[in-house]
């Protein structure tokens, strides 16, 4: 399975990862090579097999909806790259 450079750029856009041209070229080759190794899966018959998402079959773990102590605003903002007036500061999303 050979990926084109455009496909690599499209995946990078979906993943929100900036790549330079060298990285695109390298990933094109490496990802194509890795995908070739996945071909063996298509030879395994799985029509009536349900998927496994995780191995310990527990669902719907619930607890009473009671207030619990939470982190302070100072704690939450402690690692913020940019903050202002007690908020995370971000660039405008819409122009």
């Amino acid at each position: 399975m050979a990926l084109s450079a455009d496909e690599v750029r499209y995946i990078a856009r979906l993943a929100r990862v900036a790549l330079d041209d060298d990285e695109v070229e390298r990933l094109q080759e490496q990802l194509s090579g890795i995908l070739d190794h996945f071909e063996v899966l298509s030879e395994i018959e799985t029509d009536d097999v349900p998927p496994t998402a995780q191995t310990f079959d527990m669902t719907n773990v619930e607890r009473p909806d009671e207030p619990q102590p939470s982190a302070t605003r100072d704690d939450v903002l402690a690692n913020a790259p940019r903050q202002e007036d007690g908020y995370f500061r971000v660039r405008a999303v819409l122009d």
Partner: protein
Amino acid sequence: MAGPIELNRTAHEHAAALRAGRYTARALMEATLALVRQQEASLNAYITVAGDEALAQADAADKRLREGEAGPLTGIPIAIKDLLSTRGTLTTAGSRMLGNFVPITDCTVVTKLRAAGAVFSGKANLDEFAMGSSTEHSAYGATHNPWDPERVPGGSSGGSAATVAAGGVPIAVGTDTGGSIRQPAAFTGVLGLKPTYGRVSRFGVVAFASSLEQVGPFARDAEDVANLLGAIAGVDASDSTTAPVPVPDYTADFGEGFDGLHVGVPVEFAGDGVEPGVRDAVERAIAVLEANGATIDRDVSLPSASAALPVYYLIAPSEASANLARYDGVKYGFSVHDAPTMWDEMEQTRGRGFGDEVKRRIMLGTYALSAGYYDAYYLKAQKVRTLIRREFEQAFAGHDLLLTPTTPSVAFKIGEKMDDPYAMYLNDLFTIPANIAGVPALSVPCGLSDGLPVGLHLIGRAFEEGTLLRAAHAYEQHTDWHTMRPPAVV
């Protein structure tokens, strides 16, 4: 006190000495930190070596020792993989992305270790976000194998393994998503256990592949692995994937030997890909088990196991691509501020903050989950995962343990596999199936090949870590491999 403290000891030997008052936890920690700092010049096993806060922890342990309230880990030095959040101490995940990240809470495992009175030697080096098999993919430089500094210690928990193997600390914690505890344990000649999925809380552990990973112990004998697992295991209200299964005394079956144990050796793991020196060491270990009461069955097959590697390299990157979406430069971590738009800032934050292997896996996972490919890749992998689970269940119907080499080869040279991602992935061929099936597995030192350690891999039924540790303890009664040390560090 008579002379310097002998550091080349297990945790339970230190615990006995501390209780007998032969030395204090503070003196033990001072000696430990001095040795660790000295070894860092050649190993680079840590991203952060502990400072005075470790001596305060040691003083608190000494108080408990004096008051008769010490447990098996009280006052014992332990290294923490730098993927586990430590309140107030830098937690980088081996990434530039978290190069300035100081958690506001401890992860549950660290909370439990503090409660047990363990003393932290520092935050151990790892492949970035635990993605790798060599600890070369760390933004803070590669860790070196104490047996041969030109070789890797394995990964991703290579720093934890290297500092235990070098005698810096008797125990450490790592994480294992596809072999990241067991493979470095094998490469450095120590024991390493991946617990059953759901046995140990993942709360506060920097997430990579949530359906596969577990925190687990490194140590130099089965008793220490058992005590450390007992201290960190158990249900946690903060992690709904932890199992409400009681935590037993993992040493309870020590002394029962191999008698009555049915051990299966799957035919798929005896193939041509295994180095002769590794195969010889494992065969000698099998002979020890057989001569001492175990029943060995070589007519066991896990036919879908060969598909475990592609299944893993679809599921783990897919989960990673979702988990690592949180690194957007807004809430914490590395952040680019000078790009033209919000989207440019986010893409450059991620493009510059993540290393090559992390970007490769995010790309792979994003592709496997994208429209048009989801059924062929991600869903297909989840279905084959079901087949692999079923084959393990069938194999465990007639066997207490399955036995394989931990790795096909001994530790390789630094740089040897960095240009070929799939060759690197093949390291985890024998360890990945246990993560896919969610069952526990243990690597035990079983010999040397060309002067480098070989690991014996024991896989058990879900929540039967005690059987793995009983077998490892029995093996230690008949062999001395767990006492071997790197020549330079003895």
